[in-house]
């Protein structure tokens, strides 16, 4: 087990950001996509105790050690993926959503996602006209090894390319779009199956939104030096 405790004082009413000293692992079990190895998952738990008052809050999440890289191949124009340094032949399926009336359930997600894994898929593409899928969706993609390509809420038909051409500048409220995008990233970013954020379906988001997304989703400089990942738009 890896256990580390730090002490810090938080001023009254303050909202602070804290980074633990990095935890070292020697040859941890890696997380692999379906068909390439085990989907090893670790449980990461964080607790905060306040002196004199006991435990104040706790949080836990399943985490997989994996490095996802991707780039556009000059020869074919297609996007090539690597996981943990190994090239992956992507067998991807389109995912619009579990149920048109949003009757979303863990049981349904587990069944649908295991079905795709059993069909030997290793990626699900969450289409931009549907949902930012839910943590329960990602949890089963983590378990069954399905990489996820998650689009934001822009589609070619509705945003500037359809017939009739409509919403050439996307949604009316760009700040609201970015607020929702940022909150969605915070909700989903710790899932090992999340492989790629994509601006939209068959359409590039409006310039200001696309630039902001690219900027927000760049990996923090602290990590960029040694861990180029494809979690970019």
């Amino acid at each position, binding site marked *: 087990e890896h256990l580390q405790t730090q002490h810090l004082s938080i001023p009254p*009413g303050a909202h602070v950001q804290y980074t633990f000293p990095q935890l070292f*692992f020697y040859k941890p079990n890696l997380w692999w996509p379906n068909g390439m190895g085990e989907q090893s998952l670790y449980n990461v738990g964080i*607790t*905060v105790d306040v002196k004199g008052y006991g435990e*104040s809050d706790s949080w836990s999440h399943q985490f997989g050690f994996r490095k996802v890289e991707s780039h556009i191949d000059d020869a074919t124009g297609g996007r090539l993926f690597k996981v943990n340094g190994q090239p992956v032949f992507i067998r991807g399926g389109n995912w619009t959503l579990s149920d048109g009336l949003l009757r979303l359930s863990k049981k349904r997600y587990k069944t649908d996602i295991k079905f795709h894994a059993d069909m030997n898929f290793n990626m699900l593409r969450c289409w931009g006209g549907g949902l930012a899928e839910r943590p329960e969706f990602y949890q089963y993609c983590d378990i069954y090894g399905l990489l996820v390509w998650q689009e934001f809420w822009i589609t070619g038909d509705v945003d500037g390319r359809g017939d009739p051409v409509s919403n050439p500048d996307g949604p009316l409220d760009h700040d609201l779009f970015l607020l929702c995008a940022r909150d969605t990233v915070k909700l989903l970013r710790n899932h090992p199956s999340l492989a790629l954020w994509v601006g939209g379906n068959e359409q590039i988001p409006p310039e200001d939104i696309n630039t902001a997304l690219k900027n927000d989703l760049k990996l923090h400089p602290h990590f960029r030096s040694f861990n180029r990942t494809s979690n970019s738009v």
Partner: protein
Amino acid sequence: MVAIGKTKLDSGWLAARSTEVDLTGVHLTTTHPPTGPSSPWIEAVVPGTVLGTLLKNNLVPDPFYGLENESIIDIADSGREYYTFWFCTKFQCKVTGDQHVDLNFRGINYSAEVYLNGHKKILPKGMFRRHSLDVTDILHPDGQNLLAVLVHPPDHPGRIPPEGGQGGDHEIGKDVAAQYVEGWDWMTPIRDRNTGIWDEVSISVTGRVKIVDPHLVSSFFDDYKRVYLHTTTELENRSAWVAECSLSIQVTTELEGNFFLV
């Protein structure tokens, strides 16, 4: 002392069409709470949408059978009020000492007003954003809390042209919401545009300091033999005093087979 942690509110909800309820949210969460599934109140599915609740109560045919969807009035014809619904429930929660309670909505489509024990809060627009309200000071002293949520549809529900088409008249694209709801080549239009409390509702109890949105990043060296886990988290001290904290992180692996950790 209530246990630290999250409790989902996913049962005992009632719903009613806003135009059929003369009471305000203050009435509904103080003197006149709905007592049960008696008109205009029906049992509600939460998380879920208005149409999901109407279908559960057999008040509309199943839109995914045959041409049944044609017999459900579309929001473009009914107007937004017709699919603007109240969702009510009650929950037991009584905190002591320096505990804090948040009321969390993981997804509302498209905006809402929340009433808790007669106090009103606004949930701003946007289908893909979480809402977390610190309700510590408005919990009922006896622990029995009344909650009412008035959910409004997207601002631009659009109208489905006679010829249909991908995304209908594309009006839904003006909002930050799922666009398939105006219909697509694979999907019939969703009559309420998925208005509702479409994702998890919960209450979470913490002490003075709250953990917010930790971020886990791993870095790899020496051909994946040397690996680091970098963890950043936001922390919020909701008290009026300095909080001397011990912050712990623990990483354990799932035990395979019938191995047990002693």
